[in-house]
């Protein structure tokens, strides 16, 4: 199966997501529901119709039975009548010979004959003249209606149910008139039929069909002991209509919900009725209905199950669509935050592995002229199958020739994958291209031999998105690198180094931004030993900010040499600011390591922190505040001076270090203070320690830390050789000496000697030209050594008492004094033991290892 790549255009989301499948699924569900309802309705209607028909059939069957029974009865009675009529024309009857009739009757109607109650010949007076039973009973029957009726009408008559006079049986009587030769009615022949006496008769009439009733003219039920019909109302209806059916009515005995079917026997006008509870009549129909309804329900259930199955299948298909769409969405989102090519590769790899969990995702990224490959699989067994550089190389090389699917078994270049485990069958690969440039490859190794068309479309879209992201990442990497290098070039290459005052700075470029930031720092160690430090932040980014920053930095450097006061320097920076310049925040500090004085000024900048290493106390240098440059007037820039503790750490930083979205700046500064107090004064480590506590900084960060140790300072100043500098020099040297075991007076003596040495240099060395005076001092092995140098020419002058006094003072005040002169200048070395009472303390500080 060969894939059909979307040549000549980019993959669209419709290619790998069947957008209509959801709609289809909805329609399917609606159709299914509709179908079920229609089938259910039709089946129910049909079943109901069948039920009604069955009921009608049952009823007509019942009616048929009543009619049949009626006919049977009619026939039976007419047979009886005929039998009696045949007897009535017998000569004995016509002649009126009682005895002969008696014999005849007895012979013709044995007990077993139809007339089980016997047959009698009744005369006109109502007396029985002869009978089939012997002896003929002497009873008068004139009261009987049937007797009178037959005598009156001369026609046959069938009675309803009667109670026999002789035996009190339940009987009915069939009577026919008898005539004499002249056709005059002489009496009647009456045959009695015992109803009870012939239990089989009931069966004979009901044809094995229960609940048959024969109701006589008097409303007596002949088959059930002549009981009267208690439901007179029903009886009336039955009589009125002759025949019919009534459903859901009270039965003959008045009990509820019966079906009554009846017809009339014209002679002797009896009603044949079947009266049964409805349930027993329609039971079969109902059972049939129930069966049918059951079948319908079963059929519906099967239909429903089939529908669900179908829905599930389309659901699975749309779930596949969802997976693909999710993968695509995840990829676009993750690629948005992938800045570097390796990050893009990682995102592609992860997302691809997620999208095809039962395959191996392989991504190759062009690096130089080869492809760097990495593989990932959510199935760990498969993951191992590609944990091999040779296999990965083969995969990415083959994939670069795609888009195509290669069967692993038949592709010579994929030999290394055979037997790699996991029964791998196919490699689906395609290049990530931008124009003709190969940026990388994308590959999927699967156990299935082919890939769904939509999955292919997804792969294509991955390659497209990957190409865009890789391009962006390469460009970003180049630009970021450029920005970082530009930034570095704008920051000082090296910080001043001097004993007892160690500076360390760290600059962290914001990871996200490509453009150069506007943070900077700088430090200047002036010849006079004063260190001027500045940390600043130009708002905005890019070349504009960098230019402003460059200008400000050089302004600072220029004036740092000229001005002692940080405020004066910053005031000049204000003046050098162009109209409508960006805002700049800046903090400037001047440190005199010999007097241990710190002077600072701030313009819109967070306060520098000063840690006293002896006490662990951290002070915020939050005085001397002014608005940012660009807003502040020069006159608003002020400064404050604090004493520097003997051992201290000063930290100056830009707000990127402590500013985090959602965090209070004040709290963040406290966090930084805590970090500063517990860490070494290493700028890079401090930055990462703060990032650990507060999170990675959003913005650029500049941090400059100064570690001060008064004991380790070496006095070293270079001043213009002018009388004006001497007072300041003495003041600073005195302050420095005061921390070296010299009390006021002793320091004064040293200063007097040093002053004399300086006088020589200032007065004589340069002969009025501008020169340099260098004074350095240090204490070693309990001895103070002060060196005063100039670079002027030593001029042999005639000894004068003036000059003599200076030399005299030097020699008297110091332990020793040497003077060296050559072409390069003069060098006076003055030495004096540190007063012994404080020597021990000094030595212990100087060399703690000796204990």
């Amino acid at each position, binding site marked *: 199966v060969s894939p059909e790549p979307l040549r000549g255009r980019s993959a669209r989301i419709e290619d790998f997501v069947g957008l209509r499948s959801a709609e289809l699924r909805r329609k399917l569900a609606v159709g299914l529901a509709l179908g079920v309802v229609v089938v259910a309705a039709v089946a129910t209607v049909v079943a109901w119709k069948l039920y009604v028909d069955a009921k009608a059939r049952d009823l007509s069957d019942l009616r048929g039975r009543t009619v049949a029974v009626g006919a049977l009865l009619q026939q039976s009675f007419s047979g009886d009548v005929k039998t009696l009529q045949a007897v009535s024309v017998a000569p004995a009857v016509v002649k009126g010979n009682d005895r002969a009739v008696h014999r005849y009757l007895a012979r013709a109607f044995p007990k077993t004959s139809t007339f089980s109650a016997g047959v009698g010949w009744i005369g006109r007076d109502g007396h029985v003249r002869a009978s089939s039973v012997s002896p003929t009973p002497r009873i008068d029957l004139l009261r009987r209606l049937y007797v009178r009726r037959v005598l009156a009408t001369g026609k046959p008559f069938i009675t309803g149910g009667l109670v026999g006079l002789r035996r009190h049986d339940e009987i009915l009587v069939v009577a026919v008139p008898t005539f004499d030769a002249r056709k005059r009615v002489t009496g009647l022949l009456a045959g009695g039929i015992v109803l009870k006496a012939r239990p089989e008769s009931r069966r004979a009439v009901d044809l094995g069909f229960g609940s048959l009733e024969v109701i006589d003219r008097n409303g007596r039920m002949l088959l059930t002991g002549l009981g009267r019909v208690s439901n007179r109302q029903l009886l009336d209806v039955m009589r009125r209509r002759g025949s019919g059916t009534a459903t859901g009515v009270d039965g003959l005995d008045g009990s509820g919900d019966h079906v009554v079917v009846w017809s009339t026997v014209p002679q002797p006008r009896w009603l044949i009725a079947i009266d049964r509870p409805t349930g027993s009549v329609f039971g079969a129909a109902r059972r049939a209905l129930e069966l049918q309804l059951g079948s319908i329900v079963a059929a519906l259930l099967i239909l429903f199950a089939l529908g669900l199955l179908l829905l599930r299948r389309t659901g699975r298909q749309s779930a596949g669509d969802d997976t693909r769409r999710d993968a695509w969405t995840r990829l676009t989102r993750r690629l948005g935050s992938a800045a570097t090519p390796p990050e893009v590769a990682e995102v592609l790899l992860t997302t691809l592995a997620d999208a095809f969990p039962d395959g191996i995702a392989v991504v190759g990224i062009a690096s130089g002229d080869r492809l760097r490959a990495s593989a990932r699989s959510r199935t760990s067994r498969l993951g191992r199958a590609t944990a091999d550089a040779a296999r990965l190389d083969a995969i990415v090389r083959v994939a670069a020739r795609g888009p195509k699917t290669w069967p692993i078994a038949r592709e010579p270049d994929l030999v290394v994958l055979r037997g790699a485990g996991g029964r791998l069958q196919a490699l689906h690969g395609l290049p990530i291209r931008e124009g003709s440039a190969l940026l990388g490859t994308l590959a999927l190794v699967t156990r299935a031999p082919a890939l769904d068309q939509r999955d292919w479309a997804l792969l294509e879209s991955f390659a497209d998105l990957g190409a865009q992201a890789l391009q962006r990442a390469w460009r970003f990497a180049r630009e970021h690198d450029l920005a970082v290098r530009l930034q570095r070039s704008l920051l000082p290459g090296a910080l001043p180094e001097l004993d007892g005052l160690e500076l360390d700075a760290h600059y962290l470029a914001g990871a996200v931004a490509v453009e150069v930031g506007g943070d900077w720092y700088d430090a200047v160690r002036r010849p006079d030993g004063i260190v001027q430090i500045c940390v600043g932040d130009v708002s905005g980014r890019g070349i504009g900010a960098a230019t402003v920053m460059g200008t400000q930095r050089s302004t600072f450097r220029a004036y740092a040499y000229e001005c002692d006061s940080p405020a004066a320097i910053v005031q000049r920076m204000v003046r050098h600011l162009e109209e409508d310049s960006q805002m700049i925040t800046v903090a400037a500090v001047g440190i005199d390591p010999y007097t241990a004085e710190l002077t600072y000024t701030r313009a819109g900048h967070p306060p520098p922190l000063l840690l006293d290493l002896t006490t662990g106390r951290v002070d915020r240098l939050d005085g001397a505040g002014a608005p940012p440059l660009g807003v502040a007037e020069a006159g608003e820039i002020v400064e404050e001076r604090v004493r520097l503790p003997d051992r201290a750490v000063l930290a100056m930083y830009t707000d990127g270090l402590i500013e985090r979205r959602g965090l209070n700046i004040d709290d963040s500064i406290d966090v930084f203070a805590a970090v500063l107090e517990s860490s070494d004064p290493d700028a890079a480590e401090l930055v990462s320690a703060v990032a650990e506590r507060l999170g990675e900084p959003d913005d650029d960060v500049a941090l400059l830390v100064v570690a001060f140790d008064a004991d380790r300072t070496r006095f070293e100043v270079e001043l213009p050789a002018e*009388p*004006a500098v*001497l*007072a*300041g020099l*003495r003041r600073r040297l005195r302050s420095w000496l005061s921390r070296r075991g010299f009390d006021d*007076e002793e320091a*004064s*003596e040293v*200063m*007097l000697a040093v*002053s*004399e040495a*300086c*006088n020589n240099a*200032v*007065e004589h060395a340069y002969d009025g030209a501008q020169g340099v005076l260098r004074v350095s001092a240090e204490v070693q092995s309990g001895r103070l050594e002060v060196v005063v140098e100039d670079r002027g020419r030593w001029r042999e002058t005639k000894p004068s*008492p*003036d000059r003599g*006094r*200076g030399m*005299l*003072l030097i020699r*008297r*005040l110091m332990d020793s004094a040497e003077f060296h002169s050559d072409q390069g200048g003069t060098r006076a070395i003055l030495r004096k033991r540190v007063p012994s009472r404080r020597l021990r303390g000094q030595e212990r500080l100087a060399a703690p290892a000796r204990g």
Partner: protein
Amino acid sequence: VGDGFRVDLLRRRDCLIASVVGEIDLETAPALVEAVESGLARGSDRTARVVIDLAEVEFLDSSGLNALVGLEKLLAGDGVELRLVSPADRVVRQVFEITQLTETLRVAASLDEALG
């Protein structure tokens, strides 16, 4: 001139009293000489004695001494006597002792003594 260096001039009869506060070094020494000279020039009467009060001098080196010696010679030529009031600072006093100028320059213990 010089941080905290000051010369206060006071005339009492034929005495010019110059009270020096601060440090006398290469930079301020000429100023001291100038101050005394201007004091002398301003006076209408003749000045018989100049008293330089060094009590509040914190520093004095050879350039200061040279200035004082030069001033003494200059004044002596005009017949004006120079007297000094001893510095309170021990090291400053020491400068005079080491250079043995207490012989040349008349150093009084107090202003009253110098005026007396």
